[in-house]
């Protein structure tokens, strides 16, 4: 894809990011931080592409290290965010029952 199209997508994503996040309540700022943290773990697909095109053993080794790091970011981020939000869900339910 040409640089201009990529830049267009980037600028639009900036606005979407600002719009969506400005609506998040301060109660949920910690899950927001860990949730966005999880999302940038998607760099995993970049790591997979690079590892999948590696011919040199050391290139493969470095790329596999990137796969391990990115997987840890992605999986750990979503799991820990889910754990936090699970507790919020319990509390919200208790609130409506009362």
């Amino acid at each position, binding site marked *: 894809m040409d640089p201009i199209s990529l830049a267009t997508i980037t600028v639009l994503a900036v606005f979407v*990011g600002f719009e969506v996040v*400005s609506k998040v309540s301060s109660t949920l700022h910690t899950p927001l931080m860990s949730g966005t943290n*999880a*999302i940038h773990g998607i760099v*995993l697909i970049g790591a997979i592409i690079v*590892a999948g095109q590696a011919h040199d053993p050391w290139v493969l080794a470095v790329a596999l290290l990137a796969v391990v790091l*990115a997987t840890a970011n992605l999986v750990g981020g979503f799991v820990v965010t889910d754990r936090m939000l699970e*507790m919020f869900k319990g509390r919200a339910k208790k609130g409506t029952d009362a």
Partner: protein
Amino acid sequence: MPLFPPVVSSLLYLVAAVCFILALRGLSSPKTARRGNLIGALGALIAVVTVFLASRLENIPWILAAIAVGTAIAWPIARRVQMTQMPQLVAMLNGVGGGAAALIALLELPHAADWWTRLAIVLTLLIGAISFAGSVITFSKLQGILSAKAIVFPGLALLMVGVLVVAVAAGAWVVTSGPFFAAVAVLVLGLAVGVLLVLPVGGADVPIVISLLNAFTGLAVAASGFVLGNVLLIIAGTLVGASGTILTRAMAQAMGRSVSGILFGAFKGGSTAGSTEASDRPVRSSSAEDVAVLLGYAQKVIIVPGYGLAVAQGQHTVAELQQALEARGIEVEYAIHPVAGRMPGHMNVLLAEANVPYESLKEMSEVNGEFKQTDVALVVGANDVVNPAAKTTPGSPIYGMPILEVGDAKQVVFLKRSMRPGFAGIENELLYEPQTTLLFGDAKDSLAKVLAAVKAL
């Protein structure tokens, strides 16, 4: 051979991008937040499956093994980490993400055909390396491996400028002609910048830096999307970069600081450095039984939880105390400062863990007017967020930070471990006021004693 033609994979990446946006949108309410996060995880899964089915990949068994290793490391840690240690974990996960982006950029350099791809590579290397090294330092500060105070040494500012200049020069070399060793130099210099940037950040500013580095990693991922020509990485990274920037500003505002002041304040003469000395002025300390009497015969009690409560794992005991007081017909609320705990909203997470009802939690703007009608403000392990110096002492490290005005309450009870100042390293004048009572000890022990005494009333 790829199973999917490029059109299908592009559409599936679009689906994944929409999932990520929905994940962020879900966080606008506690009710939809968990489902949103699961949608985000689903989007990630779709993207990873797509990359396997749509690209011509070799070494697939190796890649699957590496994914298994990463999962095996992260899953149990994420399941078991204590909620109080959440900031450290977020810092660490962020760091490894930045590191992964930097490594990818390094390996792609030999394939970069034009200058703007090489520019994206340099940016990914630099930002990813800063994020990785900076996150390691924030992790070490929060974990107590390094001092949580600002670490400054003579010549730090000069060294920082020098490293940055060399990094930019090496980066320019990579962009123009692209020698591999210059890219390695950019990576190493980026690591040095990350360390030098975060070392001078101390105390309560550390969580803000975690958020800032989170935004950095997002930008590094977006830049790596440019390197690989992958739209999903660009969208996801940019979303995180934008949201992280907003969150960082919101946190800084909640503390009455500017982001540049946090990062470069220490260079200008250490505005985060406060006194660590305990004062020897007289204070009124008291027993758990006396505190129980104060609480048990009040009409309205506001509990102000802080990090000391979290460290002592006292959130369950405080919830029990709330129930015991409410059983006596006393109105109990929690006043939550935006930066109580170690991250914004961290205290909400901890109290949610103890099943404290949602409607008992009051945000600072809601609750500040209520202290005047409050009989007892019970400050549990908080110090800086109730320190009137934020309003009265220009030049104090926390001057300008909005605080909870517990001084308006008829009685103030501090549960504290010692007279040592809080995270920001400054004394709290409120401790010496006539309406203030102190109960020394571990927050959880003290709460348990007060709870037992309230029940015995």
